[in-house]
C-alpha cells in the first residue's frame, strides 16, 4: 500500500511540476509580449512628445516670422507715405522757381530713398512670409507625426471597458428631449454637436467644420463635415441637419432644445454640406448653446420610425454606440468602428475610440460610489463629496481633479418682495453678516473659492469690483438693523412693531450644504433664521409658488448673457431660476440688452453694470463658485472635459491594461 501511495504521490508531483512549468512558460510569453508592447507604446509616446515640441518650436518660429512680416509691412507703408509726401512736394515745386527746383531734386532723392527702403521692406516681408509658410508646413508635419504616433499607441492600448460611476439614472436618451445632466452625460458619448466647447471657452469643430455668425447675429452659416454617418448607416448632411432642427416645430421639452427654440426660426439648405441657421432674434451666443450635449444632432427619421421607443434606443454619430440599458443598473455603449472624424484638438484622437466598451453605472449613494472607485469597480467618479476629496487624494492609483463650473455661483437670493427683506438695509445687513470664508473652510474643506457677485470669475466679463462690496462686518449689520428699526429682544431675536425679523432659508437637499452655517451666522445678528429642506421637484414647485426670504440657487452656463434667466422678471414661477422673485425693470432692461448685444465690448460693459446693480441692490448673498471634483483611476487617461466642466467625453479615453 505504501509503495503504491508513494508512486501515486510522486506521479502527481511530477504532473504538478510539469503543469506549473508549462503555465509559467505561457505566462512568461504573455508578460514579455505585454512588456514589449508597453515599451513600444512608451517609445511611440516619446516620439509624439518630440514631434509636439518640434511643432511648438515651429509654431513659435511661425509667430516670429509673422511679426517680422508685419513689421516689414508697416515699414513699407511708411516708406510709401513718405514717397507720396515727396511726390506732392515735387508737384508743388514744379510750378515754382529755383528753390522749387532744388526742392524737386531733394524730393526726387527722397523718393529714391523711400523707394529703396520700400523695396528692402518688400523683400523682408516676402522672406518673412516664406519663413511663416515653412513654419506652418513644419507644424502640419509635426501634427501628422503626432497623429501617427498616437495611432500606434491606439493599436497597442486599444480595448478595455471603461466604467463611469454616475449618480442618477437618466430618464431617456433622445438628445433632443434630454432634460437632466444625467441624460446628457450619456448622450454626449453617442450624439455629436455642431461645435464643441473646450476648456478656456474655446470652440472646436464638431459636425460643423467652419462657422460664421452674421454681424447682426440673426443667422449662422455652417459648413458641415463630410463623410459622417449615423450608427445605423444613414449619412449626415444638410438635409438631415434640417430634419433634426425641424423637430423644434413639434414638442419641445428638452432643456437645451427649449433654450435654442427661443430664437431658432428655420434652417436654409444651401447645398449638401452648407446651411444657414436663421434666427427670429439676435442670438450672439448661438454657438455656445449649440455646443451643449443637449444640442446633439439626432437622426430625425430614425426617431420618428421608433416612435415611443426612441428614448431607449438612441442613434447618433458619436464615438460610442448604444448597446443596452439595464434599468436600475447601467447603460452600456460599444465603440463605433466608423467614427474617424474626431476633432483631434479636443479628443486627442481622430478616432475610433480606444476603449472597446463604455459603461455608465448608476450609484445613488455617494459613499458607495467612492468605495466602488477604491475597489476598482468603476474607473471614473464624478461629483466627489467634498469630505471625500482628501481621503481619495491619498489613495494610490487614484487622481483627483477639480473643475470650476462657470455661471451664477451658489448663492442665496434675498427677496426684495416680502418683508423684512424688502428693506434694502436689511438685505445689506445680511450681506455684511455672512462669513464666506468660514463656509468655505467648514463646509467645502477649502476646495471651492468664495463668490463675490452674480457672475463667476471664470468669465472675461467678470467685474472684480464686486469683491469690494460688503466685507464681513457684523457690527455694521447690527448698525443697519438698528437703523431700520429692528431691536433685539432678550432672546437676541430682533423685532419691530410686533413683527419678528424672520429669515426662511430654503434649500434643495444635498445641493446647498452651507445653509445651516448661514442660519447660524444670521442668528448671531438677531435674525430668526430657519432652514427648510425640500428636494428636486418639490423644491422647484415650492420656490416658484411661495416667496422665501433666502432661497438657495445656482446656475451653470457657458455664455454670460444667460444670466438673464437668473434675474429676469419673466423667469419667475415653478421650475424657473429666479427664486428670489426679483422683478426690477432696470435690471430687466440691462439683461435684455446684454442678451441681444452683438458687440462683445459693449456687452461686457452692460454685464458689468448688471453685476454692480445686483450687488448695489443686495439681491443675492454670494456663497461659493461651483467646483466639482472628479476622481479617476490612474489606469484611465485621455478623457476630455468641456468648457463648462460639467461633461466628460470618452472618445479619446483609454484604459491601460
Amino acid at each position, binding site marked *: 500500500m505504501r509503495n503504491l501511495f508513494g508512486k501515486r504521490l510522486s506521479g502527481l508531483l511530477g504532473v504538478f511540476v510539469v503543469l506549473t512549468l508549462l503555465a509559467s512558460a505561457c505566462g512568461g510569453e504573455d508578460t514579455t509580449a505585454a512588456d514589449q508592447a508597453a515599451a513600444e507604446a512608451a517609445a511611440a509616446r516619446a516620439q509624439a512628445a518630440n514631434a509636439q515640441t518640434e511643432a511648438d518650436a515651429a509654431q513659435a518660429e511661425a509667430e516670429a516670422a509673422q511679426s517680422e512680416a508685419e513689421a516689414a509691412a508697416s515699414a513699407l507703408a511708411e516708406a510709401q507715405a513718405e514717397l507720396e509726401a515727396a511726390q506732392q512736394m515735387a508737384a508743388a515745386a514744379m510750378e515754382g522757381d529755383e528753390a522749387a527746383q532744388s526742392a524737386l531734386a531733394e524730393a526726387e532723392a527722397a523718393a529714391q530713398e523711400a523707394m529703396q527702403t520700400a523695396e528692402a521692406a518688400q523683400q523682408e516681408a516676402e522672406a518673412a512670409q516664406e519663413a511663416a509658410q515653412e513654419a506652418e508646413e513644419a507644424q502640419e508635419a509635426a501634427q501628422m507625426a503626432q497623429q501617427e504616433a498616437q495611432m500606434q499607441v491606439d493599436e497597442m492600448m486599444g480595448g478595455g471597458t471603461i466604467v463611469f460611476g454616475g449618480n442618477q439614472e437618466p430618464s431617456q436618451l433622445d438628445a433632443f428631449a434630454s432634460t437632466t445632466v444625467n441624460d446628457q452625460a450619456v448622450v454626449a458619448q453617442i450624439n455629436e454637436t455642431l461645435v464643441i466647447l473646450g476648456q478656456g471657452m474655446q470652440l472646436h469643430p464638431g459636425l460643423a467644420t467652419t462657422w460664421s455668425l452674421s454681424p447682426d447675429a440673426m443667422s449662422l452659416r455652417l459648413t458641415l463635415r463630410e463623410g459622417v454617418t449615423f450608427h445605423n448607416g444613414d449619412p449626415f448632411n444638410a438635409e438631415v441637419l434640417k430634419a433634426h432642427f425641424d423637430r423644434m416645430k413639434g414638442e419641445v421639452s428638452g432643456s437645451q432644445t427649449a433654450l435654442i427654440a427661443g430664437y431658432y426660426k428655420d434652417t436654409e439648405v444651401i447645398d449638401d454640406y452648407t446651411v444657414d441657421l436663421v434666427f427670429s432674434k439676435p442670438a450672439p451666443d448661438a454657438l455656445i448653446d449649440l455646443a451643449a450635449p443637449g444640442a446633439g444632432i439626432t437622426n430625425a427619421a430614425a426617431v420618428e420610425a421608433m416612435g415611443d421607443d426612441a428614448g431607449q434606443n438612441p442613434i447618433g454619430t458619436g464615438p460610442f454606440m448604444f448597446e443596452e440599458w439595464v434599468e436600475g443598473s447601467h447603460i452600456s455603449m460599444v465603440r463605433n468602428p466608423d467614427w474617424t472624424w474626431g476633432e483631434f484638438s479636443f479628443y486627442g484622437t481622430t478616432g475610433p475610440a480606444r476603449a472597446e466598451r463604455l459603461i455608465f453605472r448608476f450609484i445613488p449613494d455617494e459613499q*458607495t460610489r467612492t*468605495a466602488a472607485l477604491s475597489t476598482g469597480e468603476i474607473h471614473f467618479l464624478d461629483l466627489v463629496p467634498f469630505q471625500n476629496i482628501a481621503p481619495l487624494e491619498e489613495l494610490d492609483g487614484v487622481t483627483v481633479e477639480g473643475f470650476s463650473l462657470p455661471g451664477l455661483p451658489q448663492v442665496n437670493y434675498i427677496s426684495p418682495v416680502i418683508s423684512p427683506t424688502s428693506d434694502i438695509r436689511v438685505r445689506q445687513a445680511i450681506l455684511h453678516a455672512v462669513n464666506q470664508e468660514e463656509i468655505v473652510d467648514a463646509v467645502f474643506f477649502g476646495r471651492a473659492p468664495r463668490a463675490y457677485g452674480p457672475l463667476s470669475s471664470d468669465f472675461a466679463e467678470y467685474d472684480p469690483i464686486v469683491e469690494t462690496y460688503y466685507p464681513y462686518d457684523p457690527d455694521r449689520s447690527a448698525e443697519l438693523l438698528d437703523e431700520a428699526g429692528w431691536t433685539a429682544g432678550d432672546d437676541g431675536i430682533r423685532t419691530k412693531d410686533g413683527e419678528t425679523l424672520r429669515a426662511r432659508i430654503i434649500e434643495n437637499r444635498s445641493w446647498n450644504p452651507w445653509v445651516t452655517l448661514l442660519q447660524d451666522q444670521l442668528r448671531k445678528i438677531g435674525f430668526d433664521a430657519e432652514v427648510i429642506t425640500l428636494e428636486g421637484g418639490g423644491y422647484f414647485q415650492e420656490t416658484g409658488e411661495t416667496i422665501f426670504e433666502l432661497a438657495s440657487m445656482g446656475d451653470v452656463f457657458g455664455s454670460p448673457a444667460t444670466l438673464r434667466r437668473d434675474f429676469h422678471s419673466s423667469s419667475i414661477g415653478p421650475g*424657473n431660476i429666479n427664486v428670489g422673485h426679483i422683478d426690477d425693470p432696470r435690471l430687466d432692461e440691462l439683461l435684455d440688452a446684454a442678451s441681444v448685444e452683438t458687440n462683445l465690448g459693449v456687452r461686457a460693459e452692460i454685464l458689468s453694470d448688471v453685476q454692480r446693480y445686483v450687488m448695489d441692490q443686495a439681491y443675492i448673498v454670494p456663497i461659493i463658485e461651483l467646483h466639482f471634483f472628479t476622481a479617476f483611476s490612474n489606469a484611465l487617461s485621455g478623457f476630455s472635459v468641456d468648457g463648462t466642466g460639467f461633461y466628460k467625453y470618452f472618445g479619446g479615453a483609454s484604459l491601460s491594461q
Partner: protein
Amino acid sequence: MLRYLAGRMILTIPVLVGAAILIFLLMQLVPGDAVSAVMAGGAKLSPEQQLEMREALGLNRPLVVQLGDYLWGLVQGDLGRSTRSDRTVISLVGAQISSTLILVAAGMAVALLIGVPLGVLAARRRNTLVDTAAMGTAVLGLSIPQFWLGLMLILLFAVNLGWFPALSSGGFRALVLPALALGLAEAAVLARLVRSSLIESLEQDYTTTARAKGASDRRITWRHGLPNALVPVVTMIGLQVGNLMGAAVVIEMLFARPGLGQLVVNSILRRDLPVLQGSILILAAIFVFINLAVDVIYKFLDPRVELGAA
C-alpha cells in the same frame, strides 16, 4: 380548505385598494408633481408647456376622478403608464421584480441560517454566558441601522479586504453583502424568537416523556423540541417578509442594485405616481400571498390548528 383560500384571496382586494388610495393621498400631500419633477431636472418648460403636459398626464382633473380612473384601471389589470417614460408600469415592474425577490430570499436565508442556530444555542445553554452573549448580539443586530451596517460591510469586505464587490448587480458574490445587510437584523429577531419558543417547547410534557425514555439531549432538541418550536417562527417569517421588502428599498439604493427598491425611490423623486402605486401594490400583493402561504403551511405543520377559526 378551498373555501378558506378563496375567502382569503377575496379579502386581498380591499387591502390592495386601501393601499392604492393611501399612496395616492400621500402623494398629493407632497409638494410638486410629475411636471415640476421634470423641471427640477433641468427642463425649461413655459407655463403653456407645463399646462399641456399636465393635461396630457391627466393631472388637472379633480382628485376623485383621477383616483377613480386609476382604481377602475386596476380592476381591469391595467396598472397605467409611467409619467416620465410612458412605458407600461407592468413592464417596468416586471423587469425589476426578480432582482428584488432574489435579494429578499437571500436576506431571509441569511436570517434563518444565522438566527435559528443562534437561538437554539441560546436555548440549550440558557442562563449561561453563552446565552447572554448570543442574546446580546441579537439586541445589537436589532439596534444597528441597516444603512450603516451596509456601509460598514462595504468598507470592510469590499474596500479593505476585497472579498466581495461594493456594487451589486448580478451573480452570487454580488449578492452576499446586500443579503447580509438585509438579513442580519432579521436574524436577531428570529434568534430571540427561536430561543423563547424552544425553551417553552422543552418544558412541555412530551419532552419530559422523551427524556424519561432515555433520549439524548441532542435528539430531544432537534427531533422533538425544534420542530414544534419552529411553528411560531414560520408565522413570523411571513410577517418579516414585509419588513425585508421595505428594507430592500434602502439596501438596493445603497448597493446600487437594480430592483423594485430603486424603482420606488426614483418614482417618488420623479413624482411618477402610476409607477409608485404599481410597485407598492405588487409588493403588497406578494406580502399578502406569502402570508397566506405561511398560514396554509402552518396548518400542515400543526394539524391541531383550524384555519379560519376565531
